[in-house]
């Protein structure tokens, strides 16, 4: 078993933890970080580029090999498919948290290089002040009324969230798991050609300000955004009828982490009950959800706030191989097939 006290001492020695790509309203990371700081005083958390995509995180590790400064991330939180790739490139190091055994086996690397952290389903948020009727499925996005309205929540060349969105759209158009990526590209290519696609990274602000009245993103993000609007503007979350894709993210520690002990301590915190519930408070299903549920450790009001379970019934969990293949296709062909340029 891990000696948490010793780890804390060692981490305090390092004094700092560098995270990357953790928006504060993503899975309530803001509160999670605050909780970590409160529990382990003496460690400052240095947050890099909250808006980075998964690929950006991997590149940050690559670019900072040997850099012990505050630009080098210690830990990353990336889309599932990026985990094995990073392992293959030798960019991450293994670590098994104390609660390792309660993480489902299909969501972790057997050697402890990467391990799933939470999941959600791909959904759409609609600004009701601008659009009277919400789309109910992917196909609706091509309707005339959604001209210049649809945005992804990331750059499909770099962001796991955006890649999964494209993949989900492909599945919804009837393709099988292998053809979903191409179908998704075609779907967005058509959407772009029609003028419904907005080449802007959809965020809470762009949705509220009307730049992107519809944003496709993980349901937990959309819920957090909707909350932040406090009813102004009115926003509705739509889980599409077809192509409900669930996505798992994974945590990993950089192989070049300047503060390895702080990184390990961070992992311990995230995978503790407290950390897992922290994510859940941000509408993310933590990877130990079933374990926690079985232990009855989840407060009822938290369960009530979650999106209806029905949405998750249809959810498809693509395998790592499927995801890798899709990622490869989408990142490399997005430019040529969709090619969303400014005109």
């Amino acid at each position: 078993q891990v000696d948490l006290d010793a780890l804390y001492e060692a981490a305090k020695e390092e004094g700092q933890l560098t995270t990357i790509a953790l928006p504060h309203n993503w899975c309530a990371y803001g509160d999670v970080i605050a909780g970590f700081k409160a529990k382990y005083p003496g460690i400052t958390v240095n947050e890099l580029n909250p808006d980075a995509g998964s690929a950006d995180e991997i590149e940050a590790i690559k670019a900072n090999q040997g850099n012990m400064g505050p630009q080098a991330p210690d830990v990353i939180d990336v889309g599932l498919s990026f985990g094995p790739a990073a392992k293959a490139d030798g960019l991450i190091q293994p670590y098994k948290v104390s609660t390792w055994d309660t993480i489902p086996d299909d969501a972790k690397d057997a050697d402890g290089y990467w391990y799933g952290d939470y999941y959600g389903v791909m959904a759409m948020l609609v600004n009701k002040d601008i659009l009277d009727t919400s789309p109910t499925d992917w196909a609706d996005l091509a309707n005339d009324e959604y001209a210049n309205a649809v945005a992804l929540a990331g750059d499909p060349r770099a962001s796991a969230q955006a890649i999964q969105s494209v993949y989900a759209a492909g599945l919804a158009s009837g393709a099988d798991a292998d053809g979903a990526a191409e179908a998704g590209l075609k779907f967005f290519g058509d959407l772009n050609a029609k003028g419904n696609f907005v080449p802007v990274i959809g965020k809470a602000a762009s949705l509220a300000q009307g730049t992107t009245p519809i944003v496709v993103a993980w349901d937990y993000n959309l819920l957090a955004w909707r909350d932040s609007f406090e009813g102004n503007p009115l926003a509705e979350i739509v889980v599409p009828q077809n192509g409900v894709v669930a996505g798992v993210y994974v945590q990993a520690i950089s192989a070049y982490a300047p503060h390895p002990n702080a990184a390990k301590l961070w992992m311990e915190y995230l995978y503790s009950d407290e950390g897992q519930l922290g994510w859940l408070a941000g509408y993310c299903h933590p990877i130990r959800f079933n374990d926690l549920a079985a232990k009855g450790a989840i407060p009822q009001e938290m369960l009530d706030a979650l999106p209806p379970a029905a949405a998750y019934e249809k959810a498809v969990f693509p395998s790592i191989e499927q995801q890798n293949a899709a990622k490869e296709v989408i990142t490399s062909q997005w430019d040529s097939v969709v090619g969303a340029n400014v005109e």
Partner: protein
Amino acid sequence: MKQNRFWAWVVFLMGAAYFVVPLVATFEFSLRMRRGYYSFDSYASVFSDPNFQATFSYSVMIGVFSILVGILIVVPAVYFVRLRMPWLRPFMEFFTLLPLIIPAIILVYGYLRLYNSSSIIPFTGSALGTDILLTFAYVALALPYTYRAVDTGMRTIDVQTLTEAAQIAGANTFQIIGQIILPNILVAVLSGAFLTFAIVIGEFVIASLLNRPAFGPYLQNIGANRAYEPAALAIISFILTWGAMGMINVLGRFAPRTSARTD
């Protein structure tokens, strides 16, 4: 002549419309946070955000250091080049033109490659080092403005003769720069300083690429994630910049006047 004036007014009013409407619109937008009626909620939200305070004071601090470093580097250089080494002038002009021609993003790319922790001068090796690098980066960005301000200031006084007048009265170089040159170009120096400040406060690219918790990246982050606060922030930063510029004008009034009357 009348016609002349008419067109002048037309041009002026068109320009005024272009510049004023976005400000009005932004202000209006910033008031829309509460559904149905106008409020200053977005401003309250901004000011109560600890990140606003933290990033803003960080940027102010970096701004102050950038100004000091800029003055320390530029004033003696301009002075001695004017006085003794006019042949160096083209080099100075060239250096100070570079930041206008080479985009900031390219400079910072270069810094990251040159001064990363595996180089001989590992600025990015520590937070403090990165702060220093950021300061230098801002000095570089502001260099055209600082240089030109100081140079203009020195042009309005006869540096050579004043130096000689002080020298023959027994003053040494420190006394000359401290007691004669600097007081006389103070307004120019300050106007350069405020420009530097205005640049530093809003700067986004360098701070973001060096991953420092500055105001610019904070603005960007808020801009992506909040609906109404960005408009409030735009108004706030506009007022801040306006304040800095206003200071230049106010200080201009206290300038030691150099123009001589003739009999």
